[in-house]
């Protein structure tokens, strides 16, 4: 079974600085997707960024980028120029690419980010 591990329950960063949230996963699949979601106090799960395993290039969305190391099964999220609004919970998630009965997301336990002014 696939597992996703976020080893940092909490992280903090100074406003305008850069922070990296770590995520590792375990899978025997070669075709899969990885995601970072954020969850503000409103509870809504919001997709931050997505990475397809077959793509070597790291995904980037504005101030958010990932460092995808397929061999190491590592998928870290880098937030540049941190803003106060980035202070929410972040979840790493895995989804197989094909060949299953369902395509559920397997989530890590989350990392709570604090941004200090």
């Amino acid at each position, binding site marked *: 079974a696939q597992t996703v591990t976020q080893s940092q329950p909490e992280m903090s960063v100074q406003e305008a600085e850069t922070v990296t949230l770590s995520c590792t996963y375990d899978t025997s699949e070669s075709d899969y997707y990885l995601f970072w979601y954020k969850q503000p106090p409103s509870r809504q799960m919001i997709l931050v960024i997505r990475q397809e395993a077959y793509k070597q290039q790291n995904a980037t969305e504005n101030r958010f980028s990932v460092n995808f190391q397929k061999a190491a099964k590592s998928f870290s999220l880098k937030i540049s120029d941190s803003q106060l609004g980035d202070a929410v919970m972040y979840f790493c998630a895995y989804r197989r690419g094909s060949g299953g009965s*369902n395509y559920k997301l397997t989530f890590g*336990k989350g990392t709570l980010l604090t941004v200090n002014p």
Partner: protein
Amino acid sequence: IAGITQAPTSQILAAGRRMTLRCTQDMRHNAMYWYRQDLGLGLRLIHYSNTAGTTGKGEVPDGYSVSRANTDDFPLTLASAVPSQTSVYFCASRMDREAPQQFFGPGTRLTVL
């Protein structure tokens, strides 16, 4: 509406009562999911449906049932609620079971006393 709606937003329920959490999407997505979120455990899949008329069990299905009579609605029923079912419940959908992006509803906070 656009997206996924869930009702109620929150509910306090006595143990032993029956409860149905509602989920409706207007995106004509084929695949739908129910997750529960518990502190320190992330989100876990309860049940899923790849298309109308079909359902399947996820990681933590015990005590829950679902139905998928049409494309838009995917209700989750707790036949006899227990305190361990206190959680935040999220409904989600994607266009089809292989589409990469999954959309989430706003969640229902359920407390079972």
